[in-house]
């Protein structure tokens, strides 16, 4: 560093081409010229190529009628809808897979990570084999594998595998009962908001009381009771303005309820299995990073095993787990784009696939797709960094 400083100051008699300051300016200008020149070169070529091929650029095509159907839509969409709406539908499909996948992969990952550390030899071995097998097979192959397995092993609608005549699994998907909201359902969300406010208030009060008197209050069970109980009570008081719509076999297919298409199920399954293995390793690393002395110290000051885990081990393990967990969440979101392989209508399959082929607007479609992933990734990243700062060890 001292060398660097003396160079930067420019010792007397240093020739200009050896002076770090001028060298820095020179290299930066050179890089800038290179990058801008490369950009201009590409822009110029693209402009000329587009003119030669007679492709109009711009985002006007987003308002044109799409003319194709999508097998899974979470907002109203039909063949008459525009490309812009197709973009929205496919984006929501991607986010759906990512959201379900992140939650389930976290659960699988924590279970596997703990299982791998189990003192039970057999359980630890099974977890290790699972992790090594799953991590070392390309995800694309796994997605296709689970899609074929689901397709080959499920019967037609009439021979559906029924679970208690409520859930039905066949080659068109998994049929579940779905709540239908009636008038007066608004009491439930209102009650939920009230419950959350109550939980925040109660947590503060409990903490204050513990600091003042040392008495503990069962905050977690009380919070859970409040969050689930209050909306339920409100619904009961309003006379249950909601009922479950059960799927029923009518003719050749099921009507009513909710259907999860096979593409969604197999994609989510593959992503969860795959990412869960990676998260499992992160969890194991995090737990092993907390030295055993911490446990012994906690026992020495009289904490029981439960509080030791909750108050000493987990907070310290989380510091190690969260940064790699973030990148696993981002990986899962990005890997969901492999949905193209099994024709799950996600952003890449619909927008960078069908729409691009129909309109020929290659640059716009790819740019929008990349921009969407960029935004999603950076948003997740910012949120997890904030969470990480909150969890990080505060040194006093």
């Amino acid at each position, binding site marked *: 560093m001292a060398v660097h400083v003396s160079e930067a100051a420019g010792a007397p008699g240093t020739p200009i081409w050896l002076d770090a300051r001028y060298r*820095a300016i020179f*290299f*930066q200008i050179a*890089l*800038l010229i290179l*990058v801008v020149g490369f950009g201009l070169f*590409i822009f110029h*070529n*693209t402009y*000329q*190529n*587009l003119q030669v091929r007679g492709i109009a650029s711009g985002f006007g095509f987003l308002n044109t009628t799409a003319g194709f159907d999508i097998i899974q839509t979470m907002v109203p969409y039909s063949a008459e809808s525009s490309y812009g709406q197709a973009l929205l539908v496919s984006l929501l499909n991607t986010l759906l897979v990512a959201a379900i996948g992140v939650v389930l992969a976290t659960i699988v990952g924590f279970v596997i990570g703990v299982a791998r550390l*189990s*003192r*039970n*030899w*057999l*359980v630890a071995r*099974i977890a290790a084999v699972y992790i090594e097998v799953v991590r070392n097979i390309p995800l694309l192959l796994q997605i296709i594998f689970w899609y074929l397995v689901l397709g080959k092993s499920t019967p037609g609608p009439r021979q559906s595998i029924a679970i208690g005549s409520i859930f039905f699994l066949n080659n068109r998907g998994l049929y579940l009962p779905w709540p239908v909201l009636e008038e007066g359902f608004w009491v439930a969300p209102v009650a939920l908001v009230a419950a959350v406010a109550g939980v925040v208030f109660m947590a503060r009060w409990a903490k204050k009381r513990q600091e003042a008197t040392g008495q503990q209050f069962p905050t977690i069970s009380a919070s859970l009771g409040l969050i689930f109980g209050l909306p339920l009570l409100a619904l009961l008081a309003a006379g249950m303005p909601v009922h479950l719509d059960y799927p029923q076999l009518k003719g050749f297919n099921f009507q009513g309820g909710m259907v999860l298409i096979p593409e969604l199920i197999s994609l989510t399954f593959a992503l969860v299995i795959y990412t869960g293995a990676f998260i499992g390793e992160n969890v194991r690393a995090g737990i092993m990073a907390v030295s055993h002395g911490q446990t012994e110290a906690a026992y020495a000051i009289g904490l029981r095993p439960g509080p030791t885990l909750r108050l000493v081990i987990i907070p310290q393990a989380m510091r190690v787990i969260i940064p790699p967990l973030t990148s696993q969440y*981002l990986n899962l979101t*990005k*890997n969901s*784009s*492999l949905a*193209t392989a099994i024709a799950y209508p996600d952003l*890449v399959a619909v927008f*960078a696939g069908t729409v*691009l082929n129909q309109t020929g607007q*290659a*640059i716009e479609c*790819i740019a929008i*797709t*990349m921009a969407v*992933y*960029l935004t999603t*990734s*950076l948003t997740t*990243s910012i949120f997890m960094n904030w969470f990480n700062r909150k969890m990080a060890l505060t040194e006093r």
Partner: protein
Amino acid sequence: MTTAVDTGQKADLPPPAATVGAIGWLRENLFSSWGNTLLTVVAVYILYLAIPPLVEWAVMNATWTGNAAKDCRMPDGSAKEGACWIFIRAWFSGFMYGLYPYDLRWRVDLAAVIVLLMFAPLAIKRFPFKTHYGVAVILLAPVVAYVLFRGFIDFPPNDPLSNTHPWRVVETHKWGGLSLTLLIASVGIIASLPLGILLALGRRSHMPIVSTFCVLFIELWRAVPLITVLFMSSVMLPLFLSRPPTWPRWCAGACRPSPRASTRPRWRLASTTRA
């Protein structure tokens, strides 16, 4: 009566039988507590569910002999239960070489042998100039493989030698299989490492333009899925270059190692090096 005081040392008693040997191991690792025993039982049940059907499918009921699809079927035409391994044998060269011309597959094998021989001296402990030789081999091996894969005598299409000559050019769209996977992977790995180091150093640099550029590059490419980069190189690269190139579309990035295969892993290495 005299009382005998025994001052001699007696042999140690053996450890309790339940704490050593196979039984001790079992007690400690599988049945140390109620919960542990329960876990063991559940694990054994899971293994029981998974392994016997797998063995039955893959070994017991599998078809091992024969050389045609009909050998995997019952006389009445329905598929036999179990795996059909003869399919792997029949397609083995396809898995390895893809659509590479049959009479030229020795060139791929030759490339593999030469590359392995090039790397072999690195296993010798006191090889002179080992580092220099290693770097040279790493840079040279993909070139050697590329030349052998492609060939170097380009005949006009109507020349009779264009179908028989042992060194005729094989276009990239005929490459395939595991050999191509290994080739692309090695080119990608070799090209991305120096770029990754460069980006990592650039990101740490005190020069504002250099570090901004590196941060933008890293954050952009690592935030988008590989498949969109592939799509981009397949549909947008022809627009970026002055003349539409004649690369085959199906192997978007695969057949042109330079633009795609090296762009991707760069950021990861960069992040790793920085950390």
